[in-house]
């Protein structure tokens, strides 16, 4: 399947656009405003910010202090929320089996805070979600976290309070295994990707509520229409525009917030700062990729190097050799590269909408840089992407006509965007979606699409990681068939910027109740045109293959538009857990549930 690319629409760049994309060379936390714990980089007035991994804390007894610092990633000095004065927060490096003790102090003025240990199995009162796990950490107070590490791998931690994650409160969490890893490497680097905005994140949320399409400067124009008429003919072009017009959607809505608002960071460094990780030629280098972005999917590649993915979300997988991977917010991938033959390689991490990138360098010494590739052409969503492809469905599917009516003039039966062969299923939508003003779209033909590299990555000449290619290195640790199944639909309204499960935003939703000890299956159906990384706290999400068998242990399941994916949950952690889309603003706009595991 190939994708028409969106041509340049001739919109002149904003004055500061280049600075937004490239960032400031000497970006980072501004010196002199924080008492202690500043990374050396922050003091560098000029030159590449290379010497500057955030501090690594390895003690099992750790003190973290959350406060406000000033940061400058774009040429403008703005407030950031930091841990021990650094952005990203310090790298925590612990050992499997250890019991760790973390005292988190809140020095923010007037705002409670929290830290959530993403993907870590722990008692509910250590999970760090205000209102579910604990009361949060009030200003001037501290919370003592204490838990035993039952796992190893690459994880991360972040605030679970309002928009603090967006303001900088995120860091890497590495747990070394007790048993040696099933792969060998000579050195390693943490690569923590994130998105930075000069705006107050709360103001950015309010902006999304006023005009959700604010950053979409890529809508199709009259000249695009004329070009498509020349290329595809009048009938095909008007049919296409008509379909989108009836849906009141636009196929260039790839991400809600893009580089018009964000500067993308790699280890807290904008592209112009050229974060550099060192290697010696011939070494095996383990790169621990973490997407700490609030709203950004990154497509990552290192031109000139094959990457071997050895772990996903901290858990070992059968090694997969690839050229490129898409990493959803909150996911982690461990990859091994063997750089040689060049002194420098670019870590190129473009956003899914192709509006900007984070970048850094692997080099034999500091001060080197390899060419930064051009961003790929911008993709366009198709009806097939969104599960509106009637061509792949049997026409005897029940309920189809009904969905069409609900869609208020959906796509029509002959759309000719056939993408995948014949496995699509017409979902049965929950009654709460029917006639719901907060549900602007419903999918009509969904599939797991586990082998789909995703929009903008198909047929790009590179070998791209898919979920189908990843298999846990171990068998289903539980082994039971799920005793029951819960189906939830991801729903939303683009224009209202309202997001929900089954059309019910968090504020009015009942908890999803699980029985302690049960093995159950969650089936997610994406009824929106956006992609959502769904994270369940407290327990693993064991992704199933298309046949319903255990395939891959994860903590965050990515849900592209038009997908139906299922995973197994072993309810072995008593308590109240957050379950949400890890796009921060989607979560805050309602795409969240409480999952309650009771005896």
């Amino acid at each position, binding site marked *: 399947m190939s994708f028409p690319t969106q041509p340049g629409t001739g919109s002149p760049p904003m004055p500061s656009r280049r600075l937004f994309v490239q960032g400031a060379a000497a970006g980072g936390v501004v010196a002199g405003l924080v008492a202690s714990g500043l990374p050396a980089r922050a003091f560098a007035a000029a030159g590449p910010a290379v010497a500057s991994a955030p501090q690594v804390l390895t003690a099992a007894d750790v003190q973290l202090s959350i406060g406000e610092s000033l940061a400058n990633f774009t040429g403008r000095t703005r407030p950031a929320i930091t841990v021990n004065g650094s952005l990203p927060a310090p790298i925590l490096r612990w050992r499997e089996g250890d019991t760790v003790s973390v005292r988190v102090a809140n020095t923010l003025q007037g705002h409670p805070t929290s830290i959530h240990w993403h993907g870590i199995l722990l008692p509910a009162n250590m999970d760090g979600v205000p209102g579910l796990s604990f009361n949060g950490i009030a200003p001037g107070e501290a919370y003592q976290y204490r838990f035993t590490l039952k796992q190893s791998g690459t994880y991360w931690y972040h605030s679970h309070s309002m928009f603090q994650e967006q303001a900088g409160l995120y860091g890497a969490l590495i747990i070394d295994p007790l048993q040696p890893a099933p792969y060998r490497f000579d050195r390693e680097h943490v690569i923590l990707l994130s998105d930075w905005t000069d705006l107050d994140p709360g103001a950015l949320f309010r902006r999304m509520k006023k005009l959700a399409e604010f950053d979409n400067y890529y809508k199709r124009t009259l000249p695009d229409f004329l070009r498509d008429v020349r290329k595809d003919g009048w009938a095909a072009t008007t049919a296409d525009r008509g379909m989108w017009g009836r849906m009141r959607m636009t196929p260039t809505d790839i991400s809600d917030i893009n580089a018009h608002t964000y500067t993308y960071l790699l280890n807290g460094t904008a592209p112009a700062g050229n974060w550099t990780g060192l290697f010696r030629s011939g070494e095996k280098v383990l790169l621990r990729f973490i997407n700490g972005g609030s709203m950004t999917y990154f497509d990552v590649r290192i031109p000139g190097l094959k990457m071997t993915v050895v772990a996903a979300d901290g858990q070992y997988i059968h090694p*997969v050799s690839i050229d490129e991977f898409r990493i959803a917010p909150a996911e982690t991938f461990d990859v091994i590269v063997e750089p040689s033959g060049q002194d420098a390689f670019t870590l190129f991490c473009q956003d899914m909408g192709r509006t900007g990138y984070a970048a850094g360098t692997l080099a034999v010494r500091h001060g080197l840089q390899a060419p930064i590739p051009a961003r790929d052409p911008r993709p366009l969503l198709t009806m097939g992407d969104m599960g509106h492809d009637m061509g792949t469905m049997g026409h005897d599917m029940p309920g189809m006509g009904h969905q069409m009516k609900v869609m208020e003039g959906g796509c029509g039966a002959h759309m000719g965007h056939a993408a995948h062969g014949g496995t699509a299923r017409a979902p049965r939508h929950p009654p709460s979606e029917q006639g719901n003003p907060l549900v602007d779209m419903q999918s009509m033909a969904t599939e797991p699409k586990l082998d789909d590299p995703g929009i903008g990555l198909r047929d790009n000449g590179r070998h791209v990681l898919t979920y189908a290619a990843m298999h846990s290195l171990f068998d289903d640790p539980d082994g039971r068939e799920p005793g029951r199944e819960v189906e939830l639909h991801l729903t939303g309204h683009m224009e209202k910027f309202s997001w929900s499960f089954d059309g019910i935003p968090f504020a009015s939703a009942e908890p999803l109740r699980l029985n302690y000890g049960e093995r159950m299956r969650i089936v997610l159906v994406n009824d929106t045109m956006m992609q959502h990384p769904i994270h369940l706290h407290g327990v693993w999400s064991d992704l199933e293959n298309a046949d319903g068998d255990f395939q891959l242990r994860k903590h965050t399941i990515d849900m592209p538009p038009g997908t139906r994916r299922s995973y197994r949950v072993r309810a072995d952690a008593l308590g109240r857990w957050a379950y949400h889309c890890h796009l921060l603003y989607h979560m805050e706009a309602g795409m969240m549930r409480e999952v309650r595991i009771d005896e």
Partner: protein
Amino acid sequence: MSRSPMFAMSILSSALLLAISAPAWAQSHAGHAMTPPPSADAPTVGADTVDHATMDHAKMDRSAMDHGQMNHAKMDHSAMDHGQMDHAKMDHSSVDHGQMDHAKMDHGSVDHSPTDHARTDHGAPDDSTMGYAAMGHGPTKPPARNDPREPIPAVTDADRIAAFPPIDHGAMEHAPDLHSLLLVNRLEHWDGQHGNGQAWEASGWIGGNIHRVWLRSEGERSGGRTDAADVEVLYGRSVSPWWDVLVGVKQDLGRGDSRTWAAFGVQGLAPYKFETSATAYVGEGGQVAATVEVEYELLLTNRLILQPLVEATFTAKDDPRYGNGSGLNKVEAGLRLRYEVNRRFAPYIGISHERLFGDTAEYHQAAGERARDTRWVAGVRVWF
């Protein structure tokens, strides 16, 4: 493909490799019906001297392998000695494991210890395109377990306390539910055939996703006086993803006109993205009026936007006091071209034509006004 002895050998060796040297595969496709693998996470291997660390399966490409019709059911490997096998020269590149049935294989007494897999060359294998699910390594899925492989821990009182700590009401901060928008769609100077002046049209809301309070206002000034203006305050409720119904009041503020109306309307985004609103007004003395407005945005570029607009007003009863005949009173059609310097601020220029109809036209002509006017406009569109 030739069925040569070498081919058979390569089938055997790949089968064996799959079965023993990558136990993790065997684990994840437990359909081999071999002894259940240990549930340990670490992929340690039984054959002690085999060094898998140096094997790179990541680059394997089994996509072209064809083991299609293999039946290993009666294989007896017990006497095999792999010690002398040289895997280094094997070519697995075109092997397909498609229909292999390992169910009855007995590897019990195979001695692999001297085998040197390290030199095995699997070409450029590629796990990512390998259809694990489709490999069909056995006729059945593993039998479902009743008990979890990893036992569910018994719950202690300490667990219960940790799981459900006391939580204060309101401990979870939520993003605000209350939002607002004020859009000044037109704030312009006009220059017509019969005069000039200023005009505005604005709308705003405050509220949540479903329930909102709307404010709407439009008006026109000339010669330093407000000729016609109104302000509406309405309660709006979303009844579908694209439509709100509104109920409220309209206050006229124009010259000599201070009527108050009850307002009932719908507004929303019609298919093909036409911004549409239709409102009926019931005034004092039983007068009924209606306004319909449709707007569209045509993107010349993503910042240069042409906005056509049509607005029509009707009244039910003839009302000479206010210059309104019954039926269609007035149609206004405009075309404005704006440039979005940024999303919030866009200057524009445009042209607007206004025409009065029927008795309305006559009443106005009688008062010395014209029934038609074409105006050039220039203004700004801003929102907050």
